[in-house]
């Protein structure tokens, strides 16, 4: 019952918007802008010829690869910058300057360096998610409470044990928050990144559908699918927050 009370309003709002959309399209008699039903049939068309899975697979592959590379770079780098003051003073200004540059601004350079294959979008996705994760991880190390570091010093544990049993678990919740932000941005950037991709990806689907005969039903289908997958990915990252080793941070 509680679930119904929480879910119902949002379902009603979505239904109302779809209804209004339908009414406006019907009333205006537009031949270009599709009705919701046309979007459904368009989507079914993509499902039937199998191209939808191809596009989804391509986008997920690029986002997955770019994001994973970003995690592999950002987490060790963030830990190092958080722990070693010199590393922080040296690298932080550079990253703070690179961070606000939209990945879209990198498109010309990406094409120059990597051409128009898979590498360019992967590079752009990497760029979009690596900085927020570095920042979160570094901040995580900086906010470890002094009392825990003191306790570790008191018990005289080795440097490795200090890192393995205190620093990393203390920062892990922040790393996961960073990963959630990073994956969100990565997925956000995929459409722009795939404007320069050839022949696959949800971003490509959207651009191509418009270019190849004003198929706005497929444009909207692509948008909705991107939204749904984004929701799913965020849900997946939320599940990480439920892991036993980080629950202490979110409890209380």
């Amino acid at each position, binding site marked *: 019952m509680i679930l119904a009370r929480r879910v119902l309003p949002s379902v009603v709002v979505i239904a109302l918007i779809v209804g209004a959309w339908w009414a406006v399209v019907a009333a205006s008699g537009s031949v270009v802008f599709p009705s919701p039903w046309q979007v459904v049939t368009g989507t079914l068309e993509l499902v039937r010829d199998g191209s939808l899975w191809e596009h989804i697979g391509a986008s997920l592959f690029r986002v997955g690869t770019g994001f994973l590379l970003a995690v592999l770079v950002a987490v060790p780098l963030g830990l190092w910058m958080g722990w070693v003051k010199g590393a922080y003073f040296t690298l932080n200004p550079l990253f703070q300057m690179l961070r606000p540059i939209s990945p879209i601004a990198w498109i010309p350079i990406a094409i120059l360096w990597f051409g128009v294959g898979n590498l360019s979008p992967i590079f752009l996705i990497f760029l979009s998610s690596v900085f927020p994760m570095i920042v979160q991880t570094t901040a995580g190390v900086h906010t470890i409470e002094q009392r825990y570091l003191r306790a570790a010093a*008191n018990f005289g544990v080795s440097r490795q044990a200090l890192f393995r049993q205190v620093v990393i*678990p203390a920062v892990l919740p922040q790393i996961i928050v960073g990963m959630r932000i990073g994956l969100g941005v990565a997925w956000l950037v995929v459409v722009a990144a795939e404007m320069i991709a050839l022949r696959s990806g949800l971003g490509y689907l959207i651009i191509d559908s418009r270019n190849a005969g004003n198929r706005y039903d497929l444009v909207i289908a692509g948008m909705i699918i991107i939204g749904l997958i984004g929701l799913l990915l965020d849900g997946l990252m939320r599940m990480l927050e439920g892991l036993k080793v980080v629950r*202490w941070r979110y409890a209380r």
Partner: protein
Amino acid sequence: MPVKVRVDDVGKSFASDDGALHVLDRISFEVADGETVAIVGPSGCGKSTLLNIIAGFDRPDRGTVSIDGVAQCKPSSRGILISQQGSVFPWLTVQQNLMFGLNGQAHGDKRELADHYAAMVGLKGFETRYPHELSGGMLKRAELARALVVKPEILYMDEPFSALDALLHLRMRNELLRILEKERHTVLLITHDVEEAIHVANRVIVLSARPTTIQATFDVPFAHPRKLSSAPVQELRAAILRELGVDSYSS
């Protein structure tokens, strides 16, 4: 009894907006091996600073601290600090917390030892719980057990039970006394609670307000278990409170 802790002419100042803040001024005292010494004083007098210096977390501007005749230079597991805030690692279970400070033993031995001490403080059955699943009193027990398991020669306790409610506070004190009877430790206890000091300690050192010096020292010559309501105990309590500038009869 040989001298365990020697505090010799220790002074400490901190920089503040209006010049140096003189906190500790020429403090000297000794603690014998196995003795329990309580340090009481008005709030803000630098009790915690003094304990941090003795435990090796902070350095004095002047004077020295020595443990067993050797100058104290950094914290070690020979003396464990228990603070009011507590520092049980929230990302480790009770058992993992207790095993944290144990070095150079087989994993099974560590776990056995950890479980033994968990049981000793009444946490049997909670070994695999995380700190956020424990009550405030149980958390304190875990903290105490984690300190005891490494068999420290000295326990540095900085208002260890102050955050607990009165009933729990008393229960933890009794627990501590029971443990100290079984396991020999030298204890330095910082407290603002005169009753706690008399209940636990062999000797009470009264500090003055800033710049802090030792104002008086009282022996507590009563055998355990101590009856806190008895006349001699109450007299001692009144005498200590008078040193602190509080007339215990007027209120």
